[in-house]
């Protein structure tokens, strides 16, 4: 066989492909095309499902035997570890930004709000899935209590953890912020949230991929845009790894 020429041909094609691809990929036209495709997916999803369309929910028997922890599975620092050991007596969740009534809530305050329990599936962008039972107040209840202003377009979640030495944050638009299944979970499968799953509070945004489900949430911030936050991509993975901001695909 003509193995050598074939190999060098393949290598040549690969080299050509690599440089051509990175050039094409970085061009403004290509990036605009990617953005159009992403916006198209979001528009179609919402046109078909409606703004309040629910992600599938499961029965207790359908839960996965364990719930994988991924990405940040701990928060560095003695202060967090001390809080964790004592059940987070001093943890505060702030609601701030474009709100008329900023809030600072303890875990007890959060547990005293009307609760929603949902058994939902977590889909990681990598491809794996886990199913768990989450309990917590709807984000909408907190946004209403804080009186979010009309000019707010996005809700940003500020997290206590760092990943690869960068502070973790994520953001969603107001449609997902007011979605009935968007909750601030303090419990998983009837137990306080384990450390690896984001203790004491994490987001559940069930129509999006795992990286949107911010863990170790310390603050909820209403903003008009996230241009000035982080690198301007709207989240840790968007900023540092180029992931899609609309994580519904």
């Amino acid at each position, binding site marked *: 066989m003509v193995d050598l020429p074939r190999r060098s041909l*393949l*290598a040549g*094609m*690969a080299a050509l*492909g*690599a440089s051509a*691809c*990175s050039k094409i*990929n970085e061009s403004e036209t290509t990036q605009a*095309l*990617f953005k159009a*495709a*992403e916006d*198209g*997916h*979001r528009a179609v*999803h919402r046109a*078909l*499902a*409606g703004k309040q*369309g*629910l*992600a*599938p929910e*499961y029965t207790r028997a*359908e839960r*996965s035997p364990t719930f*994988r922890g991924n990405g940040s599975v701990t928060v560095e620092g003695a202060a967090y570890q001390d809080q964790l050991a004592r059940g987070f007596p001093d943890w505060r969740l702030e609601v701030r930004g474009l709100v008329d009534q900023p809030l600072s809530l303890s875990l007890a305050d959060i547990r005293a709000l009307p609760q929603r329990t949902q058994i939902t*599936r977590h*889909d*990681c*962008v*990598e*491809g*794996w*899935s*886990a*199913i768990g039972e989450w309990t917590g107040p709807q984000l909408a209840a907190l946004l209403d209590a804080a009186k979010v202003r009309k000019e707010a377009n996005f809700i940003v979640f500020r997290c206590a953890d760092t990943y690869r030495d960068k502070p973790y944050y994520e953001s969603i638009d107001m449609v997902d912020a007011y979605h009935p299944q968007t909750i601030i979970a303090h419990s998983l499968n009837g137990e306080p949230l384990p450390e690896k799953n984001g203790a004491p509070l994490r987001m559940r945004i*069930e*129509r*999006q*991929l795992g990286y949107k489900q911010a863990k170790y949430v310390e603050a909820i911030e209403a903003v008009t845009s996230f241009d000035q936050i982080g690198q301007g991509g709207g989240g840790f*993975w968007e900023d540092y*790894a*180029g*992931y*899609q901001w*609309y*994580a*519904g*695909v």
Partner: protein
Amino acid sequence: MAKKHALSTRLWHWVNAGAIIVLFMTGLNISNAHRHLYWGDYGFDPKDAWLSVIKFPGWATIPQHYNLAMARDWHITAAWPFGIGVVFIWAAMLINGHFRRDLMTAPKDWTPGAVIASIKAHSGPGGHTHGYNSVQKILYGGVFGVLLPLMLFTGLAISPGFQAAAPWLLDLFGGRQSARSLHFLAAWAIFAFFVIHIVLAVSDWRLILEMFTGGTREAEAAPAPPLPEPDPATEEGAPAHG
């Protein structure tokens, strides 16, 4: 004169070829993110996998190094021409009669005799040009009727945003991880078809040319006009009609 391949077929063929190459090669990059396949709704532990696949090498993936974000950008963008194309080609095939004439099988196409006759016709000289034989009808029908729609619907089913629109789709495939497994299997079935398709096409370059020009359908082609008698005045072979 009737074209062997309608303009809609040719147009779709090349757009789809481009989309499928991008989807497949970015798909291999995406597969590298979690190389384990499961049945049912959940799956994250490799020990529960029904299949764990290799890490696909850089030369086979887009981009050529592991980059899930970039691979997903290309994948979900190429999904649009692919998905719209599947709907388009089905509409075109039903309207222009291509499906009924060339792809729809009759019970006689499924007999062992028909299969043997197909292979014999195909291996003889000029065997390629006699329309669609039984094996081709079954294979093309399987691709158009099963594999391409399966690819599209399993792709939609594993999208968390789409599930709120059509949760029944997920149930149809037996759960999210089942849909993901089927997406993977259908991709490789299309790849297998692609390889056979290319090997047979390059065996006769006219077939590839016809997919650009459309070619002419033999049975309906007008008979060639009789050659004019050689004119003694133009004996040297100069064209008779200037």
